[in-house]
């Protein structure tokens, strides 16, 4: 039993992959910093976050070996982010819609005629 080799557990990532990911992460950081000094308006944030997401994905897939792991690990990661998404979505939904008081609408003007 202990002699069995499990490919996914023992998969040794090649050095070149690690160095490649490392360089990509550094380039991403430099890019994020450089773009901040260029006026893209609202897009500054978008670009910065997109680069951050790409960096995170690289770290998860390669440094954290998720590319070589079974499905359960991925389900755990997806679930955690999905739940974070639930928290953000519903909370923002409240905070951002709090001032949407309905203005006088057709119902209100109709009422005196109905009753």
């Amino acid at each position, binding site marked *: 039993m*202990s002699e069995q080799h499990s490919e996914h557990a023992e998969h040794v990532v090649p050095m070149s992959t690690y160095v490649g990911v490392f360089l990509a992460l550094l380039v991403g*950081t430099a890019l994020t910093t450089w773009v901040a*000094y260029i006026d893209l308006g609202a897009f500054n944030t978008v670009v910065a976050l997109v680069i951050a997401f790409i960096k995170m994905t690289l*770290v998860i897939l390669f440094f954290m070996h998720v590319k070589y792991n079974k499905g359960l690990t991925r389900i755990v990661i997806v679930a955690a982010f999905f739940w974070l998404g639930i928290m953000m979505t519903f909370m923002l939904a409240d905070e951002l819609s709090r001032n949407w008081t309905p203005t006088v609408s057709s119902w209100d003007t109709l009422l005196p005629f109905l009753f």
Partner: protein
Amino acid sequence: MNDMAAHGAVHDAHPPGFAHQFEDVQQQRDAGRLGMWVFLATEILFFGGMFTSYTIYRSLHLSAFITGSHLLVVKFGAINTAVLICSSLTMALAIRSAQTGKSKNTIIFWLILTMILGATFVGLKLRFEWYRDYIEQIVPGINFVPHASWGADAGQVEMFMCFYFFMTGLHALHMVIGLGILSVLVWMTAKGRFSPEYNAPLEISGLYWHFVDIVWIFLFPLLYLIGGRYPGS
């Protein structure tokens, strides 16, 4: 009983570090890895509460957050990001050394390099960022003094600085805990505990370390680069 003898024979085949509630090393490794990922899921929600609060206030008070963000020095944030990325590489290489059967000293070399980089991160933060903020009197709860130019935004600028210190503080706390874990790993490696067959503690500690790096990957743009740094922002 009968299977005690059989169990004893199997026992010799198990490497050091094998825990007997498991059937085999593979099961133990899978369980350890799943356990660490589940723990990281809890950390995503833990930091997530602060990220969510940040998102809400940023959308409600964008101009104040921009003002606050411009109080931070991008250079140090960027350098620290690079430092952490290097430390993730060295951590991955430490694990790889164990997997490929390199000597104890090689593994320890990479682990200590990771620790040095992590300590550099914390040191840079303390000396060049937090201490500077203290001198400039923008530390909420300690000596925060609003600048006149902030006008009505002053309260929310202090709010931004609260987020800055709480989020980077919590992150730094996780780094320090990581340094503690790394020193334990160095000790375990020195004792000869790790081999290509058994290196799970290295692997799962690596997962924790990379997670802390990922948190910073998001903190950098979200705290330092709000509203951009171009002229007129």
